[in-house]
């Protein structure tokens, strides 16, 4: 098995800048918790987090901890880049929202659409960043 993402342990990821609207996400990330937002007016969950619901425009949005369980919606193995190869993907969380990520610590040739994945955190100089890896 080719662990092309093995170097992700040393790969330097950008530090999230954060802002007043999203800071709770990054604070929870430091505790290994993956937060999403849910609107209590329309009941819909969304990601990335916003203060105003993008579906009904209610301001009654609340933080909710995600299971971190997801499945691959699509992916692409970028064969070359300045920081080496990587797998970019969209995954769909068990709670509903889909998000952009990288599939890490995997054999890119073995990945499949629909495959189960789970959240894994990678360090930065600030809060850690969420990635996904085969479950």
């Amino acid at each position, binding site marked *: 098995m080719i662990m092309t993402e093995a170097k992700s342990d040393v790969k330097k*990821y*950008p530090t*999230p*800048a*954060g*802002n007043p609207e*999203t800071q709770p996400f*990054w604070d929870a990330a430091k505790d290994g918790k993956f937060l999403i937002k849910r609107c209590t007016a329309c009941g*819909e969950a*969304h*990601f*990335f987090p*916003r203060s105003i619901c*993008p*579906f009904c425009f209610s301001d009654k949005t609340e933080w909710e901890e995600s299971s971190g369980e997801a499945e691959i*919606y*699509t*992916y*692409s*193995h*970028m*064969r*070359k*880049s300045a*920081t080496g190869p*990587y797998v*970019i*993907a*969209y995954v*769909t*969380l068990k709670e*509903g*929202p*889909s*998000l*952009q*990520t*990288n599939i890490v610590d995997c054999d*890119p040739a073995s990945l499949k*659409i629909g495959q189960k994945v789970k959240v894994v955190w990678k360090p*930065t100089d600030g809060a850690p*960043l969420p990635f996904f890896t085969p479950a």
Partner: protein
Amino acid sequence: MSIKGKAYIAGIYEHPTRHAPDKSVWQLHAEVAKGALEDAGLTNKDVDGLFIAGDANGGLWPMTDYLGLKPRHVDSTETGGCSYIIALGHAAQAIALGKCSVALITLAGKPRTSPPAPRAQGAEADFETAYGATTHNAYGMAAMRHMHDYGTTSEQLAWIKVAASHHAQYNPHAMLKDVVTVEDVLNSPMISDPLRRMDCCVVTDGGGALIVTTEEIAKSLKKPLVRLIGHGEAMKGPRGGKDLDLTYSAGVWSGPRAFAEAGVTPQDMKYASIYDSFTITVLMQLEDLGFCKKGEGGKFVSDGNLISGVGKLPFNTDGGGLCSNHPINRGGMTKILEAVRQLRGEAHPKVQVPNCDLAIAHGTGGLLGVRHAASTAILERV
């Protein structure tokens, strides 16, 4: 109220260069503006509307001043590669309302010698930057899902490049003039699965410009009359992660808006300029615009169906972005230029569509697999 038939494309110019280390970006803008005005038979003194996009660094202030213009209507709507198709619609609106009478739309840049600055990011930055979305892998993700849902194959995508190469052999300015086969495409190196090098467009320096004007002025000039009869624009993104579906584009909205305004159907089109940043871009747009059903794009493009004189829908007869030109990584302008050439009867004789009186110029801008815009223009020879 409609813009149907209110605005005419009186001047076009495509810079012949594909590599311009000896020119400034500003100079390229000025050269394409001059070329389009000369094509129309107008001068810089006639221009009273200026339309530019993100390729014009610094925006309207320096460009207006540099070109020495005194516009009474300006617009710098930035939607990536389709900005110039959106600008065409906005220029028609301004002309219909009497806000300007001679609109100049320019595109120019030199990514091969001075790469553009990264696009400023939005609210998504912290949640996406680290994952390294690029044009290659964002379109790769769209292609991967399309293949999964509809059984689209790499061979089918390859036919799009093959058709473009058949056209490019007749374009003396095309960056890639060699005719290629499906096998050549499949044997080119994988860039970002499932897209190979020959699924990708060229990177070129250069540019192009358009002059859009009133019926009265167009009729006073010498060029064949080409007018805009329908226009649409739309935006699409994952919308909180709820609407993620990479198998269709915003063309499903911009296309019907344009066809409805024009009062024509996709099947009426004699020629199609379809943005070809990647082969998958073309396949999805053909489906989204209604040239075939969703999921049947692969079958539609196979067997040379996009080759002029051979297939049922001649497309990108200049060789398109896949083979000829993709100035500053933005394909919308050249899509309009070749559609106008076809309608004027000025395309290369080997690819000219006989009696071409209706054409579409369509493009997307941004990243198909992330967030993008689409714009559709229906053009008619009067």
